[in-house]
């Protein structure tokens, strides 16, 4: 692909069409449990929503505020609006060719595709066979976007409930289809081993061998907010603010685990990307892990590499609004930071991404800008990019 604008989003969300699963999963085997868009009643109104594993089973993921498709960035005014029926979903959200026009309009060259509705995973129903079939269908559907344009960099989901060899096989199969990374939960449901457990070593091994990063998005499924009871005094918007802001601590939870349990040292070529969790969190991670390592002489405990070296070698983070964080980019690691748009979600600045890029990067040198805006992403994802002499 050609770098025309000099901007790659390392975190966008693919909006699959309503037939993405029905045309790929066996109707004989799964019937109405196949993820699909159905009509439901919300507050007395007839609306459409995605249903996973059949309505009313308790596993329907998106009956809440994000409508039938989480794409407020392309819905126009008033912002944010979420489409209530599939006919209201703009094709530039769900059609890979139409969406390229949105990318051109926002002057974005390429985007890394994280999931959207119906679900970031298919663990809900606790049905191993269903999870596998749904994940395979998802990975196949997103691979089609890749075939439509090499400006899309898809990330695969994994069937957590399957045997580890099946998981590894699905990662390899997805890679063959064009996926360039794996999206993972930081905290898995009870009953599955913790992320840092040796059970998952084959996942790190295969990603390392294929040279594709693993990803932790937003809260990465960490549960702390779930254990804090909801406070009735918040307005809907204040509730959103108070539940979203603590995502800033995700890297501060997951990275020390990867460091001190030895995963990063054991898999030195493994790359981990933290999307939609800000970049400033790495300042804390680096300082606290080095402090504990030095104070407790952790090289005597089998951790021979200084944590900050591990982090700079293997951890990548994304920015979109943080001007303060960008000022400390050299403390965080100038090669470890990528831009993200979050398109078409509520945090996206589409179609004015560049306005905010310029605001956040004020005073940043040309060399640094290129790294932050697209060069680091080209390196992390091995993007076959033709970069013009002067962008």
């Amino acid at each position: 692909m050609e770098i025309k604008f000099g901007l790659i989003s390392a975190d966008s969300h693919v909006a699959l069409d309503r037939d993405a699963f029905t045309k790929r999963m066996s109707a004989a085997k799964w019937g109405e449990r196949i993820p699909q868009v159905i009509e439901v009643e919300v507050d007395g109104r007839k609306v459409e929503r995605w249903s996973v594993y059949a309505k009313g089973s308790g596993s329907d993921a998106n009956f809440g505020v994000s409508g039938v498709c989480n794409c407020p960035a392309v819905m126009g005014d008033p912002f944010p609006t979420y489409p209530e029926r599939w006919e209201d979903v703009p094709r530039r959200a769900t059609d890979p060719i139409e969406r390229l026009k949105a990318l051109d309009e926002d002057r974005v060259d390429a985007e890394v595709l994280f999931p959207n509705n119906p679900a970031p995973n298919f663990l809900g129903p606790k049905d191993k066979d269903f999870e596998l079939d749904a994940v395979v269908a998802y990975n196949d559907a997103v691979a089609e976007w890749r075939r439509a344009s090499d400006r899309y960099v898809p990330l695969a989901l994994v069937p957590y409930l399957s045997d580890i060899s099946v998981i590894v096989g699905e990662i390899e199969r997805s890679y063959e289809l064009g996926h360039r990374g794996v999206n993972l939960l930081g905290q898995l449901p009870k009953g599955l081993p913790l992320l840092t457990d040796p059970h998952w070593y084959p996942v790190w091994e295969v990603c390392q061998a294929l040279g594709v990063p693993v990803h932790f998005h937003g809260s990465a499924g960490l549960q702390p907010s779930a254990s804090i009871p909801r406070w009735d005094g918040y307005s809907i918007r204040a509730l959103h603010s108070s539940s979203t802001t603590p995502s800033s601590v995700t890297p501060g939870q997951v990275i020390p685990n990867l460091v001190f349990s030895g995963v990063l040292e054991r898999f030195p070529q493994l790359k981990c990307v933290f999307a939609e969790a800000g970049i400033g969190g790495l300042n804390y991670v680096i300082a606290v892990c080095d402090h504990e390592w030095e104070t407790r002489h952790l090289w005597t405990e089998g951790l021979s590499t200084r944590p900050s070296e591990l982090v700079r070698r293997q951890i990548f983070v994304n920015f979109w609004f943080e001007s303060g964080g960008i000022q400390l980019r050299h403390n965080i690691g100038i090669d470890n930071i990528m831009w993200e748009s979050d398109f078409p979600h509520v945090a996206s600045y589409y179609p004015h991404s560049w306005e905010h890029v310029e605001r956040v990067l004020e005073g940043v040198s040309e060399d640094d800008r290129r790294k932050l805006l697209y060069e680091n992403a080209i390196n992390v994802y091995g993007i076959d990019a033709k970069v013009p002499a002067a962008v």
Partner: protein
Amino acid sequence: MQLKYGLISVDDHVQEPPDLWTSRLSKAKWGDRIPHVEQASDGSERWVLDGQVVLDGHVADVGAIMPDRNHEPRRWDEVPAAAYRPAERLKAMEADGVDYSVLYPTVAGHAGETFGRLTDPELELACVQAYNDWLIDEWGAASDRFVPQCIVPLWPAEAAVAEIRRAVGRGHRGVIYPGMPMHLRDVPHINGSEYNPIWSVCEELGVPLCLHAGASTRLQYASREGLSPALADALSAATRPVSSVYMITHFSFSKTLIEHPKLRVVMGESALSWGMLYMEWADHQFEHDGLPREGYEMKPSEMFKRQCFFTSWFDNVAPYADFYGYDRILWSTNYPLATSTWPRTRETVTRCLEGVPPAERDRVLWGNAAALYGL
């Protein structure tokens, strides 16, 4: 106030001795429910309260002053006296260059959370009052270089308020409150107006409210089994500020800080470096969600800059001070926890305050703390 070294440590821990509660609570009334040290089947000693093992089954939390920092004592007779004897503690402060030391508990919880788990309010109050009295009698009386802070009964607010008034009257200069009370027992959400009397009495008496990290280990991502104690402990220390992120988020978006403008909040053992991202994120989200139209007079960062403090012991000051101000930063040694900078606090301070102008350096190391605690 006399300064010899130019450092007030705003976050150190006393180690409660085995007879603290047994000598102050009625054996006839409470029997074995009184916090005490007992021997486990493997010969090690541990604290037991009302039938529950506390302090993760340790007898003390004093890694920094043990021969090997990664091995906590197994028996009380291995605990160095500087952990629990004021006279010995003063010598340690001399050795590490510390003028004043602001005190938090250990058995009673690093964030003062232990007795909040009791469902018997009478026993809770008895344990809390014994600690508060002991700290004044033993430490406060030993030297004015110790700055005692009281713990409080978790609930109801009236009980907390009464104990705060009593303790401050006896000489306590700060109020330690566990920031996630609803994780300890069935009490209202920390944002609720039911807590207003507690915040109000702190404003009235001019004592800071101290929310120490680790108030809820449930918020921390668990480490996997099989890690060595040193690695598991390092991991737990590294993820501890997660509770601070949640506490300050709720204090801001619930308008608690706006409605209590004189309340000063110390985020104990918070570190500095996550604070910048927190404030940028909170302000960004605040604007993005349209909260300026919902009756907030200030942005989250403005609330913080008016009323809150971060405490550090290991991270670089200058980059973050430029962002939220030198007047928001307090220093500590975290003595005698394993994460403490003891006995190399001087060299750590030199490294962390590199590039900080002398006047600002003084504020971070003692000026802000002296003003906050009225020393």
